[in-house]
C-alpha cells in the first residue's frame, strides 16, 4: 500500500498517512489539526498539548486482536469527573478501522457498527436492554465526558468538541457496546473487554520503575 504523503500547510513538516482512509491527522510538530481534502491538507485548528501520558499505549504501538494484527495510528482523549480514558484508533491489517479503549488500564476493543436502530440520547435509561446483532446489551452507565484532545490519524473529523455523552452497555459475557452521542447521529460501537497480555502489545511507552 502506498502511503499518501503531504506537507503540513502550517509548518511544512512532512505528513505521512499510515492509513489510506484517514480523514484527519494532527501535525506532530505544530499540533495543527489537518483535514484531508481531495487535493491537499487543510488546517482547521490546533490542539493543546495533551496532559502527561498515563497509558502505556502510544502512537505506533503494535498488537494483535484475534488473528488480526494492528497498529495504533490515532487517539482521542476524554475526561470526566472520575478521571479520563483514551480511545486509541487502530489500523487493522485487514484495512478496517478499530478502537482500543484504555480506561484506567481496563482494555476493550470495539468496531463501528452501522445500520442499527439506535435510541436518542434523551431516551436512554440505565438498566434498559437493547438488542443488536442477536446480542442483548444492558445499559450500565451514561457518562458525560469532555473532549480533551486528539493525536494522530482519525477516520473522521474530530477536534473541537465540548461535552459529549456516552452510554456504556454490558453483557454477561465480555462483550460490550458503546453509544456515542458526540455527533448529531448517534454511533454504535460493539466490542469486548480484553486482557492486556492477550493483545501482545509491542512498542509500549516505557514507564520508569516498571518493566
Amino acid at each position, binding site marked *: 500500500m502506498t*502511503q499518501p504523503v503531504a506537507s503540513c500547510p502550517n509548518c511544512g513538516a*512532512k505528513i*505521512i498517512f*499510515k492509513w489510506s482512509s484517514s480523514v484527519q491527522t494532527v501535525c*506532530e510538530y505544530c499540533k495543527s489539526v489537518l483535514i484531508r481534502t481531495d487535493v491537499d491538507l487543510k488546517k482547521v485548528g490546533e490542539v493543546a498539548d495533551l*496532559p*502527561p*501520558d*498515563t497509558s*502505556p499505549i*502510544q*502512537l*505506533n504501538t*503494535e498488537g494483535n486482536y484475534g488473528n488480526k494484527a494492528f*497498529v495504533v495510528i490515532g487517539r482521542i482523549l476524554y475526561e470526566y*469527573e*472520575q*478521571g*479520563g480514558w483514551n480511545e486509541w484508533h487502530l489500523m487493522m491489517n485487514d484495512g478496517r478501522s478499530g478502537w482500543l479503549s484504555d480506561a*484506567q*488500564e*481496563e482494555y476493550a476493543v470495539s468496531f463501528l457498527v452501522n445500520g442499527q436502530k439506535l435510541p436518542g440520547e434523551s431516551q436512554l435509561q*440505565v438498566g434498559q436492554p437493547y438488542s443488536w446483532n442477536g446480542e442483548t446489551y*444492558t445499559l*450500565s*452507565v451514561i457518562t458525560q465526558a469532555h473532549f480533551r484532545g486528539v*493525536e494522530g490519524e482519525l477516520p473522521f473529523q474530530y477536534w473541537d468538541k465540548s461535552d459529549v455523552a456516552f452510554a456504556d452497555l*454490558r*453483557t*454477561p*459475557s*465480555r462483550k460490550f457496546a458503546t453509544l456515542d452521542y458526540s455527533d448529531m447521529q448517534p454511533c454504535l460501537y460493539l466490542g469486548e*473487554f480484553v486482557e*492486556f497480555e492477550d493483545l501482545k502489545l509491542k*512498542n*509500549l*511507552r*516505557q*514507564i*520508569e*520503575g*516498571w518493566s
Partner: protein
Amino acid sequence: VSSGTPPLQGAPKPHAKALNCPKCGAAITLRALGQAVSVVCESCHSILDAKDPQLQILQSFDKIISPDPPLIPLGTRGKIRGTDHEVIGFERRSIIVEDTRYYWHEYVLFNPYKGFRYLSEYQGHWNDVAVCKEQPIIDPRVSINLEANYLGESYKHFQTADASTDFVLGEFPWEVRVGEQARVTDYVHPPRVLSKETMSNEVTWSIGEYMPGRDVWNAFHLPGNAPEAVGVYENQPSPFSTNITTVWMAFAAFATALFVLMIGFEIGAKKEPVFHATYQLNRGEPKGEASFVTDTFELGGRTSDVEVTTSAGVQNDWIYVNYALINQDTGEAWDFGREVSFYSGYDSDGAWSEGSRNDSVVVPSVPAGHYYLRIEPEADPRHSTIAYTVDVKRDVPVSAFYGLGFIALLLPAIVITWRSVSFERSRWSESDHPPSPIFNTESD
C-alpha cells in the same frame, strides 16, 4: 510502519511525582500518576484531588482519626497473579450489624500496564479482588435477589449491609471520602465472592477470590507471619467440601468391593462340617466335674475360620458352655464361652420371646491340623437333664467382618460430612441467612 517519524514522546516521567499538600505543605507522593483520582496527605490526612496539578483539597479534618496502620505498607510491591502490583491506597471500612461495628480493610494495588486490583482483609481473611468486566445476572424470578449468576456460576446471597468508609490513606482511582456510605451486597460461591456496591446511582460489581494470609505475606515478602484468621469467612473454601464427594465416592467404591468380596467368599466358602455330637448334661452332677474332651477331628485345607454352633432345646432355661478348641499337634488353644437361652411367654402386649436355641461363634484363622474340643457345660441346677448339640464347621464366611469393614469405611465419610456441615453452618451463621439450629435449644 512509521517511516522516519519519531514517536511522540516528552521527557521521561518519573514513576512517582513529588508534590506538596496545599493544606500542611507535607510532601505528597503520587505512585499512580495520572490514574489516581484522590490522594490522601499522610501528614494531615486531607483528601486531595489527584487529577488537579494544584491538588485541590476535597475533604479535610480538624482532628486526624487515630491511624490504623496498613499491614502492607504503602509502596510495597508484590506479585499477584503473576504481575507486580504496588500498594498505593488503604482504607478501613465498617458495617454495623445489631449494634456492633465490624471493620475490614481494603488495599488499592496498581500496575501501570494492568491497572488496579484490590486486596481486602477481615480478621486475617484475605481476598484478591478485581472489578467485574462481565455483568453478573440477578435472577429476576427470585423475588429478593437471593442468587446471582456470574460467568455461568451461581452465587448465593450472603449479606447486604451499609458500609461506611472510616479511614483512608494513599491513592484511590475514585473520589474517596471519609464518611461515605455504600450499600454492599455479597454473594458467595467459595472460594469466590461477588460483591455489588451501590453508591448514589453508580453500581460497581467486583469479584474476589479467597487468599490465605500466608500467600499475601509471600506475595509481598512481608516479615513475620500473617495474622491468624479468626473464624470462618463468607467465601473461605471449606477444607472438607472438596473432600466430601471424594470421600463418599471412595466409600461407594470400597463398599462395592467389600460386597463383591463378601459374595465371593460366601460362594467360595466350603462350609465343611468336621464335627457333630450331641451330649446330655446331667445336672445332678456336681459342678466342675462336667468337663470332658471330644474325639479328635481334622481341619483340612488352608487356615480358615471355624464355626462352633451350640444348639439346645431350652425353654425358659439356659445352658452355658465353656469351650476350648485345642490343637492336638501343637497344644495351641482357643478358649471361649457361649450361652444358649430361650425365654417366651405372654403379657399384656401379647406373646414375647427372648434369646435363641442356637448360638454360633466363629474362631478366626485356625490353621489346619488335628483338633479336639474340651467342653465344660453349666446350667441351672434346679432343672433336669438337658440335651445339647455341638457342630463344628470349617471355612465359613464371616459377615460380621464385612459389617466392621463397612463401618470402618462409613465412619470417616460421616465424620468428614459432619465437619463439612459444621463448617458451612459457621459460615452461614454470620450471614443474613443463619441456619436454623439442629437441636432445639432452650431460648430465654
